């Protein structure tokens, strides 16, 4: 190929947009892919955690004799003998890596118990079996302290929620309560959502290896660079000596974004026993040490005139954090952007309980917030006798409803039109309970999906070899999104080389730093870096070639070069300022619409989702195959959230009572119908290559679409998730 062909120009993309097979597919279907607990070291020891069985206490004694007597046990670490870690850093906006402290607890440093399930000891043994068995023999004695554990009971004591630098959630425009009072048509509903857990199939695991002050950690993390910095801080060693390896991450969904106890205690144990240590958490230990999604209660009140134009929107929420930390979800954030109305009131409150810190779970805020607002819109449509699609179209805003900012791109009208047509929405009988198929009551539901688009800067290097091979190096995280695949496609197009000649190196903190995989930022952020690095590389090659034509190989050969490497580095302060300035005038987001059909057994109330169609306005699609999978994945997780998932926290003890995949019901094959996914493929003019993150948007709106379909099928409006059969069981 010639240099002119390498110009990124009007030529159509060769790979971007195509349904390319994922580059790591082969390793995953053959079992070659090794996850964090699957790296062997000579002399490897195994650790297991001992968890507190009370919510708040001081440990007055801890008997480890029986555990130590188990053959193969090397050591039992407790607050009485564990080496000290530095305390977790407090969050500072000047150092975003401080964000990864999941809790404020310094494990095994004091006799304090802050939640039921907190690790109070670590057993290290020659075999995992010995460690696990010995852990059951450690007996702490507690002096119990009063604890506040019941979310429902504490709700009246909620306090205003602190704001979030990157995402505004509240709003006051006009006088919404007054407008409600005079509105001809209103709905005023109270919703609840339960706690949820991520349940990535790979339980959290850490393999930690010290060599003097140098540390290597195999960890399924969504945040390689920040984890490295956090470990360096906590263990008081130079950051450059810490290496985090995460080439494969067995699912994250937010649960592996922060640094939780298991990671720290594995590293601590390895240091204490002077051997490599693996700590593979049991499924129950994941529940007890890694936070989940906050429960919420929400009120949505809507006022409309007789033809369905909104005059007032009120959306308020109460969620919870742990007293020892947690992330308040921006529950009402999406409502800032969904519908035009002259009067809008959005407020968030939070209660602090003596429970494990909650954390981000796929689309924090939007996932549960859209359940309330999109259910309420549906109910308003019933009140008005209006098609719920039509109601949404009538209130589709031209500009951001709360402040008049421009949308960078917004194609919800088009999404609704396409979805309604493809789904056969207009053919339905709009009456509740009117459609039957044998024993099934059939209903259709619709809801809007929304998730804000963020970006962070990424460091990327691109190496072009004289043999024509390209290596993209970036410490990005791959946990199933197809991250390496899409960046290879982008680099291949940018450089005009075959996809097969591009290799992406990732999942290693020794590579240039990438932002974490969270907030749907990764693909676009790294694409920005890859494009910039490829541009730089092409300029370097052009300079080498001095304008003479030739292939990359010819130019490099003539210049006597084995390879050329271009590297781009992020300037964080400049980036943040530019981002904040842009946010003053622009709103950007991924959005979409869900259409679904549910069947409700007329006798038993069993609910089955029988059809699903989503249309997404998510910018330009890089890989039609992996994008569809990711969008489907969000919908499947949304189905669980809608119908079957719920973490049971016993309000008497603060103990999670279903910490298992047998009792926490994630969707199985039989729960999931074929999911039809469409995208509008309209590039976002303000984003690199027009890309918009798609990891989270599709879970938003799912629960509402299901609830709305159940309402259509049965006439019953379910306000409390999950929508289990008892809530629709005919009397």
């Amino acid at each position, binding site marked *: 190929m010639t240099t002119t062909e390498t110009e990124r120009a009007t030529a159509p993309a060769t790979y971007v947009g195509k349904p390319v097979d994922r580059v790591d597919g082969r390793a995953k279907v053959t079992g070659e892919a090794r996850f964090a607990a699957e790296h062997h070291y000579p002399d490897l020891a195994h650790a297991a955690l001992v968890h507190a069985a009370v919510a708040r206490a001081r440990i007055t004694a801890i008997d480890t004799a029986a555990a130590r007597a188990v053959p193969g046990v090397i050591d039992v670490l407790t607050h009485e003998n564990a080496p000290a870690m530095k305390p977790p850093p407090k969050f500072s906006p000047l150092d975003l890596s401080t964000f990864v402290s999941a809790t404020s607890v310094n494990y095994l440093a004091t006799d304090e118990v802050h939640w039921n399930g907190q690790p109070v000891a670590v057993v290290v043994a020659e075999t995992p079996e010995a460690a696990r068995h010995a852990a059951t023999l450690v007996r702490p004695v507690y002096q119990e302290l009063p604890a506040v554990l019941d979310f429902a009971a504490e709700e009246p004591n909620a306090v205003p929620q602190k704001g979030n630098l990157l995402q505004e959630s509240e709003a006051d425009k006009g006088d919404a309560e007054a407008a409600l009072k005079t509105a001809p048509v209103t709905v005023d509903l109270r919703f609840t959502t339960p706690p949820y857990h991520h349940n990535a199939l790979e339980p959290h695991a850490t393999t930690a290896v010290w060599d003097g002050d140098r540390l290597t950690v195999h960890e399924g993390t969504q945040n390689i660079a920040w984890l490295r910095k956090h470990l360096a801080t906590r263990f008081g060693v130079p950051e450059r000596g810490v290496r985090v390896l995460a080439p494969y991450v067995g699912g994250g969904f937010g649960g592996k974004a922060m640094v939780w106890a298991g990671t720290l205690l594995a590293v601590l144990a390895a240091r204490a026993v002077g051997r490599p240590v693996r700590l593979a958490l049991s499924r129950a230990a994941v529940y007890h040490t890694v936070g989940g999604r906050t429960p919420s209660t929400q009120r949505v009140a809507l006022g409309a005139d007789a033809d369905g134009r909104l005059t007032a929107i009120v959306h308020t929420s109460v969620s919870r954090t742990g007293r020892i930390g947690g992330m308040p979800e921006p529950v009402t954030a999406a409502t800032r952007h969904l519908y035009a109305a002259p009067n809008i009131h959005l407020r968030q409150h939070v209660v602090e309980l003596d429970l494990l810190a909650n954390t981000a779970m796929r689309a924090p805020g939007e996932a549960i917030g859209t359940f309330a607002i999109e259910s309420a819109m549906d109910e308003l449509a019933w009140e008005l006798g209006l098609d719920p699609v039509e109601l949404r179209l009538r209130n589709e805003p031209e500009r951001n409803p709360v402040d008049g900012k421009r949308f960078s791109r917004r194609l919800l009208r088009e999404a609704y039109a396409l979805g309604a047509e493809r789904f056969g929405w207009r053919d339905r009988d709009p009456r509740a309970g009117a459609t039957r198929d044998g024993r099934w009551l059939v209903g259709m539901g619709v809801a809007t999906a929304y998730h804000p688009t963020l970006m962070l800067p990424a460091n990327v290097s691109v190496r072009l070899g004289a043999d024509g091979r390209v290596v993209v190096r970036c410490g990005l995280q791959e946990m199933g999104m197809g991250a390496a695949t899409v960046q290879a496609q982008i680099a291949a197009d940018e450089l005009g080389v075959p996809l097969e000649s591009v290799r992406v190196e990732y999942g290693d903190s020794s590579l240039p730093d990438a932002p974490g995989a969270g907030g749907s930022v990764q693909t676009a952020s790294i694409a920005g870096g890859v494009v910039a690095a490829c541009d730089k590389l092409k300029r370097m090659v052009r300079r080498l070639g001095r304008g003479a034509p030739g292939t990359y190989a010819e130019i490099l050969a003539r210049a006597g070069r084995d390879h050329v490497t271009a590297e781009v580095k992020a300037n964080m302060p400049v980036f943040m300022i530019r981002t904040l300035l842009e946010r003053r005038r622009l709103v950007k987001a991924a959005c979409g619409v869900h259409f679904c059909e549910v069947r409700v057994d007329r006798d038993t109330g069993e609910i089955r989702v029988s059809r699903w169609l989503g249309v997404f306005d998510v910018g330009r699609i890089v890989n039609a195959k992996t994008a569809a999978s990711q969008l489907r994945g969000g919908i499947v997780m949304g189905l669980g959230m809608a119908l079957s998932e719920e973490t049971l926290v016993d309000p008497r003890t603060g*103990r999670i*009572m*279903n910490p298992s995949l047998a009792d926490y019901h994630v969707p199985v094959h*039989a729960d999931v119908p074929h999911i039809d996914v469409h995208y509008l493929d309209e590039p976002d003019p303000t984003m690199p290559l027009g890309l918009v993150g798609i990891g989270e948007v599709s879970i938003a709106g799912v629960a509402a679409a299901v609830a709305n379909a159940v309402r259509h099928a049965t006439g019953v409006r379910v306000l409390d998730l999950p929508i*289990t059969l008892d809530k629709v*069981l005919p009397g």
Partner: protein
Amino acid sequence: MKPFAYLKPADVDEAVLAVAADPGARFLGGGTNLVDLMREGIERPATVVDLTALPLDEVHDLPGGGLRVGALVRNSALAADRRVAARYPMLAQAILAGASAQLRNMATVGGNLLQRTRCPYFYDRESACNKREPGAGCDAIGGFNRSHAVLGGSGSCIATHPSDMCVALAALDAVVEVRSVRGVRRIPIAEFHLPPGDTPHVETALAADELITAVELPPVPVAVRSRYRKVRDRASYAFALVSVAAALEVRDGVVTDVRLALGGVATTPWRAREAERLLLGGPANEEAYRRAAEAELAPAAVRPGNAFKTGLVRATVAATLRDLDLGEEIG
């Protein structure tokens, strides 16, 4: 799990002797329940006597049309047996409604009879449970009890018997054959599982040293038209909220034979004898079905978490009998 000694006897006598000699010994079948409970520290046997080498894995015809099922027949093999599918469809359906294919490939018939409850407080060693630790109290009664029993419970335990297969066995009047050093005993299924009363840790009529060798299914002509309907919190791979094993014969609109048993709602596989009594000789219609279920539920004691089950039992019983009468497929 706690270390243990392991024996793998080659014949039944050897197995029975091994346990007779060692009060801390437990029989191990497919392991799908016992290994899990051992890992959780709930079962802590000193010796595990692995039964999987015993020649108890065949299904034989009995004179008169019954079947004798070896205790080590895997659940999947029993469900796939054509005689079972033809004579006792409810049994094949019950087995296939349970667990997952992998677990059914491992689990044995004998082990399924001895399956222990899935009560979360039983499974959590830090919670109070009279079944796990007699006299400790019951955290389920005032706690999460959506999955718990409304029938057969006591003030000390409301844990549900989790088996699907046993519900069909209850409807079919199966007989459990057991062996010990004292000889052979035959226990009717109705007497095999014990209600908790004040001793919820005593779950069956089996003595500690008795080995289940077979389950015998008597001929039950009405079972040719039978169904197992399971209602649960997801479409598959979940324990029952309510299940119904039913067989029905209707002539000229009158119920001439009926079998009915309930799962998911009782501390033992629950034969609905009162409902059967009311149905027999009465009209085969929706109202009669619901009235019969209602009568069966007369002694029900509900809690906030499981109060919905009485309505669900009525609905599921009525739907299952209606489908049987109309010959409708459950799909």
